[in-house]
């Protein structure tokens, strides 16, 4: 093999291969960096809760003086719901279903001597909007255990308001989720006792959320039987930046509860920018691939006579192709390693800035980016090998 390589390395142009390595390195670094940067930065824009679907909006009607007094008028009618459901920007629509019975909850750690008791309300949204393990986010008649999602505000209110001024211990989310609530339900002449367990906190849903299956059952069991119109809707949209949403809401006098639309816009722009950067990276990589292929073609062409003679003295095409395949494989591997090095250096630099700007940012690993890099390496190398094999096969068939 040493002799074959001695022959076939003739006419190798260092310049061309250095050019390829550089171009491929730049392309790959742009792709990997763009991908990694998106991974790192998108965690800033996506809120911390993982159990709600991404592109949804909570819709309410504006509370006006008259309706505030009468207690009516800010719930949605059936026709309004239908209309919203058929809008082109709507992917799906869910209703907030309120509980039609009275609830009181007490919670405490008796050995610490803290005990709260409070009147409460429950609401539910269809399960498809709650991205939580559906086997746990469920209730069946006969269960005495109800999973609950609380607004994170409630916890903050306690920790930074109540506990702070009263000298009470602060509670972390983990501790809270270990505490169970005693829940009493009354209505329709019946009462029931249940254990509530807080399974999560939500930044974006200002309600005490229980599984729909629980309310469906409990409203029949304890409710008055009156139909309750929902005052809040949960809306999943195709694209939160769609300006038709804003126009529609203005025309109808609807409001959204949070800044999801703004956040959606930022994320969307981020995606666009990263998309453009990735596109440029891919383009450069494709061009680099092209340079390498041209170099190899040229090399094979210049060494055509030697290759032909090797084939005629009994070397197989795959054996003759092997040195060139090994060469490209080696170059690709070098480029991959260098790209990861550059990525690590650049990332270290921008992470420092990000951490200063957003102290509570959660930094993920580079696992996915490594996978992307390896995937590109495998695909590009495979294509290289195949093209070289084909080129040698042409020489075998004397088609040049």
């Amino acid at each position, binding site marked *: 093999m040493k*002799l*074959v390589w*001695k*022959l076939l390395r*003739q006419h190798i142009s260092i310049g061309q291969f250095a050019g390829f390595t550089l171009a491929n390195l730049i392309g790959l670094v742009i792709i990997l960096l763009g991908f990694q940067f998106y991974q790192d930065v998108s965690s800033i824009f996506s809120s911390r809760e993982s159990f709600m679907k991404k592109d949804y909006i909570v819709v309410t009607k504006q509370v006006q003086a008259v309706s505030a007094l009468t207690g009516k008028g800010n719930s949605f009618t059936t026709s309004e719901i239908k209309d919203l459901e058929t809008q082109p920007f709507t992917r799906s629509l869910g209703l907030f279903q309120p509980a039609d019975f009275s609830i009181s909850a007490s919670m405490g750690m008796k050995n610490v001597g803290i005990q709260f008791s409070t009147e409460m309300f429950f609401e539910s949204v269809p399960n498809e909007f709650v991205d939580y393990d559906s086997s746990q986010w469920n209730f069946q008649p006969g269960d005495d255990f109800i999973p609950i999602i609380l607004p994170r505000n409630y916890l903050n209110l306690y920790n930074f308001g109540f506990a702070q001024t009263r000298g009470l211990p602060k509670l972390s989310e983990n501790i809270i989720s270990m505490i169970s609530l005693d829940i009493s339900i009354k209505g329709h002449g019946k009462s029931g006792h249940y254990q509530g367990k807080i399974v999560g906190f939500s930044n974006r849903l200002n309600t005490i959320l229980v599984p729909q299956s629980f309310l469906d059952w409990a409203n029949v069991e304890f409710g008055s039987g009156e139909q309750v119109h929902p005052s809040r809707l949960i809306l999943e949209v195709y694209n939160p930046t769609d300006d038709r949403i804003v126009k529609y809401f203005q025309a109808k006098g609807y409001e959204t509860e949070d800044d999801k639309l703004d956040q959606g816009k930022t994320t969307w722009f981020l995606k666009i920018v990263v998309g453009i950067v990735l596109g440029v990276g891919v383009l450069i990589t494709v061009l680099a691939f092209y340079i390498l292929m041209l170099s190899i073609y040229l090399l094979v062409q210049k060494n055509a006579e*030697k290759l032909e*003679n*090797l084939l*005629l*003295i*009994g*070397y*197989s*095409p795959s054996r003759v192709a092997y040195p060139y395949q090994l060469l490209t494989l080696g170059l690709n591997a070098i480029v991959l390693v260098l790209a990861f090095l550059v990525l690590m250096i650049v990332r270290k630099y921008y992470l420092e800035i990000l951490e200063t700007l957003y102290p509570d940012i959660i930094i993920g690993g580079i696992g996915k980016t490594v996978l992307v890099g390896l995937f590109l390496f495998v695909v590009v190398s495979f294509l290289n090998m195949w093209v070289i094999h084909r080129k040698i*096969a042409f020489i*075998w068939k*004397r088609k040049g």
Partner: protein
Amino acid sequence: MDKIELKQVLPLVFEERRSLMQSDVWLQNLTFQKGHLYLVEADSGTGKSSMCSYIFGYRKDFTGQILFDDKDIHSLRVAEWVDIRIRCLSILWQELRLFPELTAMENIQIKNQLTGFKSQKQIDEWFERLGIGDKRDSKVGRLSFGQQQRVALIRSLCQPFDFIFVDEPISHLDERNSEILGELLLSEAQKQGAGVIVTSIGKHMNLDYDQILKL
């Protein structure tokens, strides 16, 4: 491989002269048998090297059929050709097809490493016997054509074969060296029971040919 058959073979370039063809090879049914010694005599331009190229699967610009043990060579796959070129057929090309960048010895090794057929000692002995012992480490590009012919012969012997084709092997050799080359060729062929096909456009080795064909 026991026989090579040529059935009505004609190079495409001779197609226009098909009716005028008078040859012992072209448009004939001819069989080369293993263990026999053939001389193909030709004027230049009558397609002597083409015949070798066809049989080696290097060129396909002919009509008719070439069969190895009744198998049409058109049906051979790449792997089969590779195997045939290592085990069954050997050739000393008229244009030698050596690698000028490598030394004489490297040119032999690049073949012998593939087949592992001859010992280094044997190869060294052949270099000496053919009078090119001092050229072992010289780049082939710097040797005279006659010296190159001898290197190419050694290379063609570094593999097992059922048939060996030598295309004008002595065109640039003196009588003494021609004789040594002929002896070497025949003794190796006899050892393997192989068929030998020598081509010539005039000057040829004086051997005991079984059949002389006029191309």
